[in-house]
Every structure is written in C-alpha cells, then in structure tokens.
C-alpha cells in the first residue's frame, strides 16, 4: 500500500502538537517525507527486519518495566504515560526500515518469537503486513496522550483519521457514500466521547458507593487515607449517611466531627499517641456520661446506620453526655474521637453539649510535626504569602483569605506532569504552589501544615458538614458527599475548629444532584421509618408519615393488575372466531346455490377450475365476476398462510358475497350443466 505524500508527515506533526514536541514531530515528518524522494533502497532480508524489530521491542519493554517500577515506588503513572506517547518514536526506526527496503512491507512472521515459531511449525506462508498503515494508526492513537488537555484534539483527529480510512476503502466504490458514512461516524463519535467521559465518572461514583457500602462510611479512629495525590474525580455519592435533629430551637453546629488525627505521612493522617479511655458502662446501659454534668437537656438527636465496620461515633465538640446510645462499649481517645463497639443496626442517640467542655488532650510535639518532604514547599509558600512571623489568629485569617481568594475548590483533579519524571513535588506542595485547586483534604492538610510551620499546633479533623435541612421532618440530612475535613487549631489554651476550604464547596456539592435522588431519599425514609419502629417502638412514630407510601404500595400493583386485565380482554377479543369448518360451511352453501341452478361441480374438478370454466358460461359477466371473486377470496382464506387469522368479519363478507349473487334459472329443456 503506497502512502500519499505528506500523509505520514501530517500525522507525525499532529503527534508532536499533542504534547508540544514540535521539534521532534517536525523532524520525524521531514525524515519520513524526504525518504520518498531518495531513490536509494536496500535489499533487506527477513533477518534484518527481525533484528530491527527485536531491538525496538526490547527497548520498549525495558521502558515499560521502568515505568511500572516508578509507578509502584512513587505512585505516579506519569512515566508510563510518557512511554505510551513516545512509542511512536520508538517504532519509527522499524517503519523507516520498511521505507528504505525494496519490499516496502514486512512479513507477519517477523514480529514476535511466538509468531515465528507458529509459522514454522505450521509450515504456512507468511502474510505481508502493511507496516505503513499500522504505524500511521499507532501514531494517531498515541497522540491522544496529550498534555495539557487539547480541546481541539477530536476536531483535528477526524480529518487525519479520514485520510487513513481513505487508504483502506475499496477502490472505485461509492465515493460519495463512503464520505457520507465517514463524516457521520465522525459526528457520532464526537458525541459519543462526551458520553464515555460521563459514563466513566458515573461508574467511578457507583464504585465509590460500593466501597462506601462495604466500609459503611465509617472513619477509622487511628488512621485515615486521604485522596491527596489521586487523579480524577473525588468519588462521593449523595447517599444519606446520617440525620441530625435539633432538640432545642437552635441550629446544630455546622461541622460534626468524627475523628481527629495529628500525624501526616504520604497522604495518610494518623492518630499518634492517642490512648483511649473506656467510658463507664451506665447502669441503664444507654446513658453514657462523659463528664460530671447534671441537669442538662439534650441538644441533638443523631440517627445513623453504624454497619459492620462501625468504629467512630459522630459527636459535636463539647459533647458531655450520650443518651439512648445502644452500644456495648464506648471509649474516648485522647485526641477527641469516640470509639463505640457493638451497635444495633440503627443508632438513634441524643447528645448534650457544653461548648466550653474539652476532652481532647493538650497539644504536644506531634501537633507540630511536619514531614521533611513537605518543608521546602511550605516554606516557599509561607515566604511568598507573608505568613511568616504572624500570630495564630492572624495566620488563620490570612490562610483563610488566601484560600478563599486565590484557590479554587474542585472535586476533579488532573494529572500533574510538572517536575522531572523521577523527582516530583509532593501533592501538597504542588497544590500550594502550582495548581491551587483541590478538595477539602488538600485545604485542611495544607492549612494544618502551614499552621505548624508557623509554630501553631494543629490537628486534622474528619467528619461531616451539617447543612441540608429537610423541613418536612425537621431534620438535617447529612450525605456522603457532605463528608468534610477541616483543622483544629490550638489558640489561647483551647482547641478551635478552623475550616480553610473556600465556602463555595457547599454550593458545588449541592449542584450535581442525581435525578434519582428524590426516589432514593424516599426509599431511605421508608427504610428508616421501618427500622425506627423495629428498634425503638412507636416512640416518635407518626402514622401519617406512612400514608404516601401506603398509597404508592397500593397504587402500583393496582395499575399493573388493571393493565393486565385489559390486555387479556383485548387478546380474547382479538382471537379468531372463524375455523376451517366455518369456511367449509360457506363453500357448501355456495356450491348449494349453484347446484340449485343446475351447476353441479364434479368431484374430480377442483373448485377454482370449476368456477373458471362455469363462470363465463353464465352469460352474466357481473355475476361471473362475483363468482370468481368469491372463489379467490375463499382460496386465500382457506389455503393461505398458517399464521393468518380468519376473522369473523371476513366470514361475514363471504356470506354477503353469496347473498349478492343472482344466477338465472336454468332453462327447463337444458340438461344440468356440468363442467369437466
């Protein structure tokens, strides 16, 4: 297959454009196109092709192995992406070999040892392979490994693919049709690629749901793995995790903590030196006293499904008492987390809060620890933004202002290709200095590190943001995507919560609402209502809340049954009522009519033949026509397709036809007319 001029050059330049490797792309294009004008060719043997291919593939495989080593060591697939991209250049020598050879193609048994043995064993003739077209498409595909993202990539891909497909089309065949098909395919493909990306995100979310379901959304009291460094969309669903009901006429705290950590390492936060203290088992088994506080009214009620891996108990800061908490044991960690074990399927507990109360231990050296690899980036940022030398309050305010103004909250993170392939900046440094966008874990981790850098003890807190109020049942709904991370800062002798994430994050989380959410919420409410009754009796039960569900329960089956009845009735009505007997009766009636007038059909004569012979002799063309029509219609019904139904209406038509036939009396002196 001969390549038209410039075609391979164009695709190489396109490859160069996709990653700003203009020099290499253009140089390769020039080399490839220039060879076309050089008449010099080499008579190469199959062994020469094999050697070139073996060297090429060996280099490629070594690069792949290296890429995987880097991936496992540093967790970044950047090298693999680069290898994939540069494979176009790795295989260029092999393509050039075919260009300068006299054959202009390579045989299939050149490739891979396995194929060579196969052809030898089977004693088969090798197939010539069009190396040029294969290389063309290889370059076209790997050029998709773009950096940065090229919005015009698909638009430029189409005409280049068009060129390649033009070479593959059957000669002299329907050029207009071919062009129309390819253009239609390009348009369809352009639409499809959006759907693919969307589908990928949905699958990720669904996967997150499964993982979340398996872990039941519980936080580990001693370690949490963040998504710092991960690429792609942060996977959060809108599944309801817990419900918070204020028992006093005041809004519950916006931040509902679950676990506290003080040591950061490579994307994980750990609760270091956080011994636990068992809370005394209460006499009644359900009222757990954290401190000696009496005559307190409960502030909040929290409903949640603990699940199998349940560990940490969501509790607002200042919690002094848990009421109606049905667990086997409760422990308080020094950093402030509550660990509970042996919970029921549904927990519905109440908490009493004393804002001034603090059960977290005072800060120690762990609350100022910064990993060595983070220091350079933090120092640079602190220097650039003027954080150095400020007091805690000023530092917090400055950080908040900086993050709110210069940073952006996003759930979607692109791959970072900055730095060298082997030494890359840490994700936190990259976030602070380069990308300036991330999710709450980035903001919280960076803020904690920056405060520690400024000498202010800080801890990392995970929990939920209580923001969505359901006026119907007077509860705050907390969903999976309301999970949040913030910082706890030690200022003026107490731990103060500090949320450095830009406030726009709540709006971003609430915009992407699934169309199924309402239905899922209703089902969740129904399930909660059922479990409430099951575990807590009819306390707080309102019968009226079940009415819509009862109606739905009765309505849906009712509609289904009604439609079934109608379908059955229609089917019965549509059944054929005519049978073969009915048709035979009609024919007998027809024959009887004719025989009365002296026209008798001999037994050996087929009905249609008899009518064809008899009808012209009647002397009444119109009646003859009727006879013929009747017979043809009868034949069609009687001997037609097995699947055809004979309806009653058709039988009636035949009867009507018979009634309309008027044949004159047979003359007396005529013998009965018998057709042969």
């Amino acid at each position, binding site marked *: 297959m001969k390549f038209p001029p410039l075609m391979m050059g164009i695709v190489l330049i396109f490859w160069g454009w996709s990653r700003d490797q203009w020099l290499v792309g253009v140089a390769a294009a020039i080399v490839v196109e220039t060879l076309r004008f050089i008449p010099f060719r080499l008579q190469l043997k199959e062994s020469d092709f094999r050697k070139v291919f073996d060297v090429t593939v060996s280099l490629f495989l070594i690069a792949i192995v290296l890429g995987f080593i880097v991936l496992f060591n540093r967790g970044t*697939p950047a090298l693999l992406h680069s290898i994939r991209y540069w494979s176009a250049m790795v295989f260029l020598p092999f393509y050039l070999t075919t260009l300068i050879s006299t054959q202009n193609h390579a045989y299939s048994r050149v490739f891979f040892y396995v194929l060579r043995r196969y052809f030898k064993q089977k004693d088969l003739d090798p197939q010539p392979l069009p190396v040029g077209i294969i290389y063309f498409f290889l370059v076209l595909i790997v050029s998709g490994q773009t950096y940065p993202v090229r919005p015009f990539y698909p638009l430029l891909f189409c005409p280049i693919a068009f060129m390649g497909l033009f070479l593959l089309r059957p000669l002299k065949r329907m050029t207009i049709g071919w062009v129309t098909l390819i253009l239609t395919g390009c348009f369809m*493909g352009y639409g499809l690629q959006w759907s693919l990306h969307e589908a990928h995100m949905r699958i990720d979310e669904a996967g997150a749901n499964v993982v979340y379901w398996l872990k039941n959304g519980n936080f580990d009291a001693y370690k949490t793995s963040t998504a710092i460094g991960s690429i792609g969309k942060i996977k959060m669903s809108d599944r309801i995790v817990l419900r918070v009901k204020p028992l006093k006429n005041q809004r519950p705290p916006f931040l509902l903590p679950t676990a506290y950590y003080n040591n950061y390492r490579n994307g994980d936060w750990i609760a270091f030196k956080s011994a636990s203290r068992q809370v005394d088992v209460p006499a009644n088994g359900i009222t757990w006293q954290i401190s000696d506080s009496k005559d307190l009214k409960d502030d909040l009620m929290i409903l949640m499904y603990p699940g199998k891996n349940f560990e940490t108990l969501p509790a607002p800061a200042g919690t002094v008492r848990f009421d109606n908490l049905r667990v086997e044991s409760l422990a308080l960690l020094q950093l402030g987390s509550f660990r509970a074990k042996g919970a029921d399927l549904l927990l519905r507990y109440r908490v009493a809060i004393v804002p001034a109360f603090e059960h977290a231990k005072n800060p120690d050296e762990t609350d100022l620890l910064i990993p060595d690899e983070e220091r350079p980036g933090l120092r640079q940022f602190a220097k650039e933004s003027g954080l150095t030398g400020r007091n805690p309050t000023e530092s917090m305010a400055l950080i908040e202002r900086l993050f709110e103004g210069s940073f952006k909250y996003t759930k979607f993170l692109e791959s970072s290709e900055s730095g060298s392939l082997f030494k890359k900046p840490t994700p936190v440094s990259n976030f602070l200095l380069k990308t300036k966008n991330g999710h709450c874990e980035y903001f919280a981790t960076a803020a904690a590190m920056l405060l520690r850098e400024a000498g202010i003890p800080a801890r990392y807190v995970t929990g939920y943001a209580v923001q969505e109020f359901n006026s119907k049942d007077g509860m705050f709904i907390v969903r999976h995507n309301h999970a949040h991370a913030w910082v706890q800062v030690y200022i003026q002798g107490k731990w103060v919560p500090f949320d450095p994430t830009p406030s726009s994050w709540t709006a971003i989380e609430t915009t992407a609402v699934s169309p199924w959410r309402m239905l899922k919420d209703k089902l969740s409410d129904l399930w909660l209502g059922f479990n409430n009754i099951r575990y807590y009796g009819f306390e707080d039960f309102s019968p009226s809340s079940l009415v819509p569900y009862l109606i739905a329960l009765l309505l849906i089956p009712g509609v289904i049954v009604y439609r079934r009845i109608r379908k059955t009735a229609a089917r019965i009505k549509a059944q054929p009522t005519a049978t073969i007997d009915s048709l035979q009766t009609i024919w007998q009636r027809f024959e009887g009519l004719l025989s009365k007038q002296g026209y008798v059909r001999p037994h050996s004569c087929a009905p249609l033949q008899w009518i064809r012979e008899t009808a012209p002799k009647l002397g009444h063309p119109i009646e003859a026509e009727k006879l013929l029509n009747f017979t043809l219609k009868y034949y069609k019904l009687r001997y037609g397709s097995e699947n055809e139904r004979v309806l009653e209406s058709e039988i009636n038509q035949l009867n009507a036809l018979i009634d309309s036939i008027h044949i004159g009396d047979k003359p007396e002196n005529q013998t009965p007319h018998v057709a042969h």
Partner: protein
Amino acid sequence: MSFFDLISFWILKSFFHLERWIILRTTGEGRIFLIVVLASGFMGLNTYETQIYQGFAILACIALLGWMGSNLKRKIVIQVERRVPAFAGSQEDFSHFVIITNVEKKPLPAGMLLYESIDFPVPDKKTFLAELERFRRSPEKMNPFIRYSMARVITWKRLLRSQGTAFTNGCPIPILKPGESTTLRVSSTGRSRGRLHFTGVKVLNPDPTGLFYSVSSIACRSSMTLLPKQHSVGLINLRGKSRYEQGGVALAAVLGESEEFVSMREYRPGDPLRRIHWKSWARTGQPVVKEFQNEQYVRHALILDTFATPILEPIFEEALQAASSFVCNISTQEALLDLMFIGDKSYRFTVGRGTDLTSSMLEILACVRSSESGIDQLENLILRHIETMSTAIIILLGWDAPRQKLVRRLQQLNVPLLVLAYARRAKDKFDFIDFAADKCTFKQVNPGDTPRVLTTL
C-alpha cells in the same frame, strides 16, 4: 463436569464463532482497523488521564456504521454449481471449480469474494463434556496441568477434527453481467481427514467503508473425501501361501484360479450329482465322480488397532497414515487385502482381484475413528478369519500386555506377521526379543517417524 468446564466450553465455542465471524465478515483492512479500535479503547480506559478515548469513540462509530452498512446491503443472488473431486489428501492443497451464473437483472458489483461453506462439526455441550471426561480418564501418565486444564482445548480441537474439514481461500468474483457465467477455481487445504461436506457458498460483498463484508449465502451441497496422508513403502516381501477358500469361486467373489479336473474317485454321499461321471459308472457299475482342484488365494490381512485413548490420537492418525500407505502400495493384482478394525462394531473390508477399488478402502480409512472397546474384540475378529489369512500386517498403538498377547496368539497360529508398534514417546523402547521368530518382523515406530520406517521396510 465442573463449572469451569462449562465456562471453557462456552468460551471455546464463542472464540470459534468469533474467528469465523472475523474471517467472513471483516476485510483484511477491517481487521487492522478493529485492532486499532480495540487498542485505542484499551489505552483510553482512563478518561481522566488521556484523550485517546476521544479517538476511540470516533473510530468505534465509524466501525459501527460500517458494520451496519454491511448488514443493510442487498443480498446477492447467483446460481452456483460445484465440481469437486471425489478425493483429496487431508493435509494437502487441492482445488475444485465453482461455476457461478448471475441470475439478477443487474451486473454483479466489483470486489466480491466467494467463500465455500463447509460443515464444521461444532460439538455440542454434551459431546464436549463426555469427550473431556474420556480424556481425563486416560490411563496414560500426563502432566496434571494438561489433564485438567489443557484438556479442554485439546478436546475441543480434537472434536473439530472429527470429520473432514478444510481451509478454503476466498476467490475473487469478476464483474458479471446479467445472465453471464464464469468458472472460478477455488483452492483449499485439507485440515482433517474424513468426509468433507460443502453446504453452500458465501458471497462476500464489501461495504462502502471497505471494513466489513455483507454475506449472501447460497445453498449448494456437495461432498468429497479427504484421505489420510500416504507415504511410500519399501519393497515388502509378504511371505504367504495360498489358502483354501472354502466355497470356491462363489464365496471368494473374485475371478480366481479356474477349476481344473484332477482325477476320478468313488462317489461319496453328499457329492453333487452333476459331478457324476456317467460313463465310468456304466463301466464300473458303481457311481464315480470327477474331482477338481480347489481354489486357493493369497490373502493378506491389514489389521488396524483402533483402541486409542484421546491422548493417543496423534499416534492413531500416524497409524492410519501407515495403513493408507500399505493399501496404496500393496499389489492386489494377484492377492486379496482384508482390512480389519474395530469401530462401533467389527469391520472387515476386502479389496483386490476385482472385488473393490483401492480408493474405496482409502475412503473407509479416511472415516475410521478410535474405539473404546478392548483389544479382545479385535482378537475375536482376527480369529474368525484366521483360516483364510496368508499374512498379516498389524499396526498397533503401543506394545502393552494385551497387544503382546494378540501377537503371540497369531504367532502360535503360524501366521507370518509384520508388526508396526507405535510408541507414545521417542524415549519409549519396545522389547521384541521374546517375539523374534521366523517369518515375523517387528518395528517400533516413534511419533513422526512413520515415513522413514515405511520406506525402510
């Protein structure tokens, strides 16, 4: 039967149909294009990290449109007549002719291909599982990986070879005007022996993108036989003497030696009356009959051991090749050749001296399959016909005790023997010392060594 066996069956069957789909429905360029589409789909899986998925989407839509276009193309209607040879070699190239006539009112479009439709013996689930079980029960020593894992692939391939199959090349169809005919020469390569059934032809018409074919099937049935491979055989001296053929010419059903008058003798009760020599009776006063020389024939037996477990199938095929070679090379002008083997029952076929053609016997050998019954049945068959046997060529699939017993028995009956014993592996060594005798020749045949051994006979 395990769950994995069932899954393997469906996977193998799917791959088989997929392979046939690819051969019939995709052009050469289409295959390259599909590989490109799949590769781009694989590389573009992570839509966060690469834009390759965008290229994949475009190429996939083009492929889809091409496939849809191939399904919507009009079906080609032609008249087909096929002329196939009666026989061909199973691992050799052969060609036959197909005459096609354009019966449509439009000329045939350019670029079409004609492919032969061959009836492939695709096994059903029950057969596959039964044969798989049979393979696993083979008493021969086997690597457990082969016995339990590779057995599935081996069984599948074996079942696909259970009747004649061939690989046919597509033949380009020229542009034909309405009513015009042309003769196409279709070249094929035999894959496995047996009856090869052509069920029809498929006319492949490429779609506008040139990636897929639309397929029009035209029924046209024919059959031929793919014979086992034959090798040249050295000059064998089959030392056999004529044996009395009871029943004379009638039962021998050959043009045998004519009856010759030898002498007279007294009448004995039971002698046919037409042999009474009346003149002598008149002279002697007692009934006298004429005595004739009885018919005698040289009858060679070719005994084929068909008791092969599935693992011995390759050896069985070689044994068949040896048997076919003998059939082709033994002169049957003056002798008869009896082929004996056990299939689903006992079989004995005779060729020579006008009884039947060598080609018929080769045809029979082409369709022989291995048997599950024991060597005793073969022994019974041989002993039933031992009286008429002048010499015996025995082809055995091994040299175990039952087979040695059979040979010993034949030696005791003074039948000159030529024994070819096939070894499963080259390192196996058979000991024929105890069987060495006059008029008996023993040869061990290692796998792949059949041509050499036959030439050196």
